[in-house]
């Protein structure tokens, strides 16, 4: 009746002991490194100025985040801010988000400081259109499958997720794949998030999963409209900034 297809994978098979019991994790602490490639980003925004300002820009900035989950809910927040050499004309933006996801209820509470105002966005989990690909890649020791998602109908997101971790979450508000996302890339922002370490936990204290509570309450649509009006002003620079805040 139906045609059965095997999709072969382009990864050399690692030695596999069939007898070993496959372990699935649900209580995890995952460290992420977020890398923003400033030079190509600037080159895109200000092609005319790039050559003159590049010496005052770091090539890339790396900040560190932690994602902790008990399988049902998760909290993502920064652990170490990006180190900036002195005299650089650069200030990282959208780098202090605290994201709480509740996978059972399908809701999210994210705290996003945007310059002078801190917002508390309460909404449902993100609905990203994902397309799965047969490509895989090993991140932090886990074999991950690549998926390509479309955010806000136009923004491409590359994500690598593993079904060995039974948390359907990811860095920032990138969710919706059947497993834990350990790597994300958003070409338009020249930004990647990659897991550097995955730790299995025995227990997760409720304190480690307490959502942020301070900030001006809003929802995703309102937040996007507000930022778009205040920051984008139709310029390449503002548009990128808005995107970085809303993802």
């Amino acid at each position, binding site marked *: 009746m139906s045609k059965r297809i095997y*999709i072969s994978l382009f990864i050399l098979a690692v030695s*596999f002991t069939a007898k070993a019991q496959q372990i699935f994790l649900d209580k995890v602490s995952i460290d992420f490194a977020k890398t923003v490639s400033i030079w190509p980003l600037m080159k895109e925004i200000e092609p005319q100025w790039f050559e003159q300002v590049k010496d005052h820009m770091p090539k890339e900035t790396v900040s560190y985040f932690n994602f902790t989950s008990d399988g049902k809910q998760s909290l993502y927040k920064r652990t170490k801010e990006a180190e900036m050499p002195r005299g650089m004309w650069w200030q990282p933006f959208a780098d202090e988000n605290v994201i709480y996801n509740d996978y059972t209820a399908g809701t999210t509470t994210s705290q996003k400081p945007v*310059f*002078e105002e801190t917002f508390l966005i309460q909404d449902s989990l993100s609905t990203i259109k994902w397309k799965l690909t047969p490509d895989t890649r090993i991140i932090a020791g886990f074999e991950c*499958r690549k998926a390509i998602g479309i955010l806000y109908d136009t923004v491409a997101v590359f994500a690598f997720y593993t079904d*060995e971790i039974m948390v359907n979450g990811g860095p920032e508000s990138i969710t919706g794949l059947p497993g834990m996302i350990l790597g994300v890339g958003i070409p338009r922002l020249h930004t990647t998030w990659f897991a550097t370490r995955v730790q299995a936990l025995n227990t997760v204290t409720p304190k480690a999963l307490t959502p942020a509570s301070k900030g001006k309450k809003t929802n995703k649509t309102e937040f996007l409209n507000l930022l778009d009006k205040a920051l984008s002003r139709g310029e390449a620079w503002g548009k990128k900034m808005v995107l970085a805040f809303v993802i």
Partner: protein
Amino acid sequence: MRKLLYAFLLICVSQTAFSQLSSLKGSTRDTLEKKNLSNAVITLLRPSDSVLVKYVRTDTKGDFTMGRLDGGEYIMLVSYPKFADYSDKITIPAGQQLDIGTIPLTPKNLLLQEVIIRANNTIKIKGDTTEFNADSFKVREGATVEELLKVIPGMQVNSKGEITAQGKRVDKVLVDGEEFFGADPTIATQNIGAKAVDKVQVYDTKTEQDQLKGIGAAGDGNKTINIKLKESAKKGYFGKAEASSNFDKLHNGKLMFNNFKGSQKISVYGTKSNVNTGSLGWEERNKMGVEEDMEYDEIGGYYYSYGDGDNEFNDWNLRGIPNAHTVGALYGNKWNEDKHKLNLSYLYNRLGTKNTTTTLSQTLLKDTTLTNNSTSRSEGLTQQHSANGKYEWKLDSLTSFKYTVAGSYKLKDTYTDSYSESFRDSVLLNNNSRFNQTNSTKKQLDNTLMYKQLFKKKNRQLMATLRLGLIEDESTALLTSTTKFYKNNLLDSTDLTDQQKINTGNSTTYGTKITYNEPLSNEWNLVAEYSFNKNVSNSHRNSYDKDVDGKYTDYNPLFSNNFDLDATSNSGTLTARYMGKKLRLVLGTGLSAIRLNMKNLDQNTRTRYNFTGFTPTAQFGYKLTNQSGLSISYRGNTVQPTLSQLQPLPNNSNPLDIYIGNPDLKVGFNHSIGLSFNDYKVLSGKYTFANLGVTFNNNAITNFSDVDLESGKRTYYPINVNGNYNYYFWSVWNSGQGDKKLSHEIQPSANGGRSVNFINGERNVNTYSTLTLGYGIRYSAQDKYNFYVGPNISRNLSKSSLRPTANNNYWSYGGRVNGWLKLPWNLEIDSDADFNLRQKTPTFNDNVSIIVWNAQLTKKFLKDKSLRLSAIAHDILNKNIGFNRTINSTFINEERYDRLARYFLLQLSWTFNKMPGSK
């Protein structure tokens, strides 16, 4: 039959409308171990575009059920770690449950992959790179890279321009190994001509850290295409041509051309103008790649620039009606991974001006007023050739050298004809007619070599600079002056001067500076700096009177002056700085010893001066938030008298105004205190900024003037006084900017001070201040229109102890209005007006109102709107004059000079560009 069909359709419709939700169930099983697999992921994809619809995991028994599904076709993908994916097309009946049964999964190590590599003459395989020789593939004339890729075996390009190479998606297209304008691969493939391509290389997207800078690299398993251009094709250019004229006397032209080939860049430009100095604007300078002299002081943590402060070719300094030409060329190159960088530039300026200045000035004495009216006509021509070079060499990540050289040759010819009259109250004292012609040249060469060494320890840094500067001056001047002195309105005496002045000067400066920064902790740094400077110079200023034969041979020792000067300075500073997250502190002091050794060649005498300089400094900065902060600073510095203040260097270029030196001047000391606050709210666009500063001068150097009430002659020399101070305050508050948002701005500001001077032996204390309040309102709709209205009002106050009754207070009003509007048919109109209205005062009995109103109508042509035709109207009301007014309580001066008033121009401008490798 027909009825039956309708009934059937109706059933179908209602079936869909009330369709029940479907579900799917099944279980997964390891085919090898014959065990059920728990936690396997079952994913349903939409078959049309493989978008993920829903997923579920199997339970501990390996079973799953997925509910709340719409009936229809799906792709079912089942995955389990280290097992091959299982994929199947399934159809779930509407409103029913589909039992898929047991899904067999196979461990991945049982599957092998087949690899095929194909090669022929036009294709080479080097490691993981496949290289295609572009010329082997036939494409039509004028084809793009995209068309070339379509004919290369194993490559597909779809209608959106997306490329597939060897069955994999191409996520990155590089041009000569570099990203070509961002992440979108189509920019390169659709803009570069196939003819320009030498080779096309295809390789796997790398995952190394350095390849990660372009984000596309994250998708491993994808392909990268590198387009290697033919050497002859790595070229591009852009530029601008502009011409405007009133078809009478005003003609302007501007041509800029920027050509680049790889990292090599050559630019040339030329301008001609009858309305301004023809200097390139800031944006144009940047486009052409003119380097701004901006440097970052890594030790001090601030930026500084040493631009051309007294650039004569700047529009700000323009007086009179110009006739200007400029020609410039730049060359820039980088090589060896940007470790070597070379910049060379040449600029020629030629500025001719014609000007008439009328001046009215008053000196208020205790019980009398001296008035002077003068008119002077001048013509000048200044030409300058300047060449600059900069070479930077980075040996490694820690060591670098930089050498800069700047040379200039300036020729200046001026011709001034002036006439003045002086009165005591209304009694004529003298009149003077004067003619001055000067021809001068100045040659200047500056060399700087900088060495910078960083260390493994963060923030430890050593910087050493060597400087060598040479200046050579030469000038010849003719001065003829006739001054007639009157007594009781009758001619009393006549002074005649007819001299030739020959001046030459030479100066050599060399110096070194060593700065060392030692980090004491993460926050604390200690900076030590030592510098040594030596200047050896000579100056010969000789005046010759006309002899009986009409030749300038009679040496005039009174107005001649020859000396050698040797100046040496040693200085050191020690600064501690704290850079915390919020708090910033700087504490430090500098000490310097300056020795001047002067040899007067006329009298053969030597004079030595020794000064000690002291510069304590303290700064405190606090960051309230990322966008707001507060800072307080104190700076003290000694003020050494200048050589011309110390030495009598008589100058008779204006015989009615004679300046002499004072060898007894003491070193002064200034205390400056500054306070500033800024707050910017990014989301609302609101901002507040306030800045306050006060400077107290101890032993300030001021003038002691002697005015001869009988002749009107003024002689003055510098002396030290106490009690001088000045202050300024400037602030702005803006309600918030944004598109389609009315924004208000309020700008209160003030400045003033107290100064002491002496007139005819009497001490005169001046107090003065100006208070200004400005307001602005702005509204704009992006790409449609914008307008701004900004009026301001000022009160000018001054008072002198010598003449407490004199009232020179007045109001002045001003402002600016501008607007821009986009019209249909690619038309744009924009207009602006500047207002300057001054109230009359007892001295100036007319209200001076200058209103300059300009307007411009532009039509854009061509598809890319690169051609613009504009009708320009400048100073529509014909009110523009150059105007300056100084009121210093006992000295009042008003000056008016020529400026181009009303004119109309028709302007055509075209911008063009060709990207590297394009058709």
